[in-house]
């Protein structure tokens, strides 16, 4: 027998292995940023500031988990922000106009999220739209519904009991942060330790090969859009519950922030690779950078330019991972 089709093993050096870990691209800069911020500004490490940042991270992350699944299966959801807006207005209509009880509103919101996502899923899997086109259509469609219903004015006042979801705390920690932690753990488990997660990654890696292995790839792709719909609506729910009114502007531009967080966190735009931990690091990076730039009095306009540069760097790292940069002949 001997060395039939011998696989020569090359021991990658520690530097290469370090940079090959998906989350690392953003973790290192994130830590550096946090340390610098700690030195520059004493208020940075205050409990309230940390809680505020975690809260901001959680809205990004909750939606980001959905986006991670969609991107991993080689999809894309541009309608995420519009779905968040739709969630907000849907809640406003149910609570203020229809005076439904809060528990029923929450359940119906989850169902509506699943349906909003299912529309994308149907367009992509049954009508075979490219994800970009399908979700661009619903990006406009859902935002149009939001503006059509509200005519641009907020729905108010939301019942105070509802705001408990957004403002309530358990042991001093806001519910949304606790939800984020549970969701993060569950989503990591599903992605790494269940068939569903494996098939999401396999479908994103090569749909045809995965189909040939007997896996219903269309169902997998469809489900990822339903999932992001539900999570977008949950993110919108927590966001809405912080205010006394349902704002029609909620979620505008959010899809791009979430996609940026995922990419910075090492989720591949080309499908088949990504991690929930990476998306958390990416979301945290977005928020801490925002916080840092605010404290450094950098104007909102320039913030966007800096974010652009960071996304370019993140994608270069993603490409480098895939291509020859870290490979030796």
């Amino acid at each position, binding site marked *: *027998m001997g060395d039939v*089709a011998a696989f020569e093993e090359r021991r990658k050096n520690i530097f290469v292995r370090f940079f090959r870990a998906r989350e690392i691209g953003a973790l290192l800069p994130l830590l550096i940023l946090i340390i610098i911020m700690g030195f520059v500004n004493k208020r940075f490490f205050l409990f309230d500031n940390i809680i505020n940042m975690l809260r901001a991270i959680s809205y990004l992350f909750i939606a980001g988990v959905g986006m991670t699944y969609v991107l991993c299966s080689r999809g894309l959801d541009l309608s995420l922000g519009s779905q968040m807006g739709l969630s907000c207005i849907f809640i406003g209509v149910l609570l203020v106009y229809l005076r439904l009880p809060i528990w029923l509103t929450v359940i119906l919101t989850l169902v509506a999220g699943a349906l909003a996502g299912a529309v994308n899923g149907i367009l992509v899997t049954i009508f075979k739209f490219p994800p970009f086109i399908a979700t661009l259509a619903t990006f406009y469609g859902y935002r149009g519904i939001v503006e059509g219903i509200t005519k641009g004015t907020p729905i108010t006042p939301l019942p105070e009991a509802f705001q408990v979801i957004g403002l309530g705390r358990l042991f001093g920690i806001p519910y949304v942060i606790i939800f984020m932690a549970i969701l993060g753990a569950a989503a990591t488990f599903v992605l790494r*330790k269940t068939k569903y997660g494996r098939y999401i990654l396999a479908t994103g890696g090569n749909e045809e090969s995965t189909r040939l292995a007997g896996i219903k790839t269309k169902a997998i792709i469809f489900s990822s859009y339903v999932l992001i719909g539900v999570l977008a609506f949950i993110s919108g729910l927590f966001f809405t519950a912080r205010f006394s009114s349902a704002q029609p502007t909620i979620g505008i531009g959010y899809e791009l922030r979430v996609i940026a967080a995922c990419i910075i966190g090492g989720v591949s735009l080309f499908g088949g690779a990504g991690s929930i931990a990476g998306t958390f690091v990416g979301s945290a990076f977005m928020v801490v950078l925002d916080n840092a730039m605010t404290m450094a009095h950098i104007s909102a306009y320039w913030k966007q330019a800096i974010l652009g540069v960071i996304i370019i760097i993140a994608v270069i790292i993603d490409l480098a991972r895939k291509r020859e940069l870290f490979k030796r002949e």
Partner: protein
Amino acid sequence: MSDQIILEGRDITKMYGGVKALNEVTFRLPCNEVVALLGDNGAGKSTLIKILCGAIRPNSGQIFVEGQEVAFTHTRQAKELGIETVYQDLALVDSLSIEKNIYLGKEIVKKYWFLEVLQNRKMKIGAMKFLQELGINIRDPERIVEELSGGQRHAVAISKGAFWTDKILILDEPTAALGVKETNRILNMIIQLKKKGLSIILITHNLEHAFFVADRFFVLRAGEKVGERLKQDTNTEEIVKMITGAIFVEAASQRTQA
């Protein structure tokens, strides 16, 4: 070597529109033999194996697996009967590791109440054992397929097919686009699989490869069976004649005259 036929396609005819891709072809795979399926482009090789592995249905004809007549409507049924196919494009997921590819769609899980949890360690060990059995020297089954060389990818694809059957393996051009050294490794691997007791159909364009591993040659031309030869009864020259054929040459010259 027994004379028992493990897989047989009898009088298989397949039409594409008005064109006969296969015309009453009878193909037999004897148990524990390597049969090279030869023929020029468009001779019907791919159509024949697609029918034998359940990917498409013939217009007429019968298929027998171990003497039992079967009617495949899906590759899954063929797989259940122990017929695995390695396609020319390998059908690997590049972004997944070797062991994840081998187990794709058939993962080992442990059930906790309603939760099915992947047993990654078990699968890693299972994949590694099997690869070592085939003489594939690999320390790290967690390597991503994308990082492997062409020959290694072929080896993984063939292992993936062989892992799930102890009966019939269909290989569609397993040595296409490989270098000399890598080709030899794959050919050795095929011999190894035969020793393990598999019966193998090998599609190839390369007669040298066919003569190296196959026991028997089956030649198709324009959807018709030209002939079948045992290795000891034939030579390269005869097989080349069977593949190209006088009929083909005549048809070509008629076309140029017209």
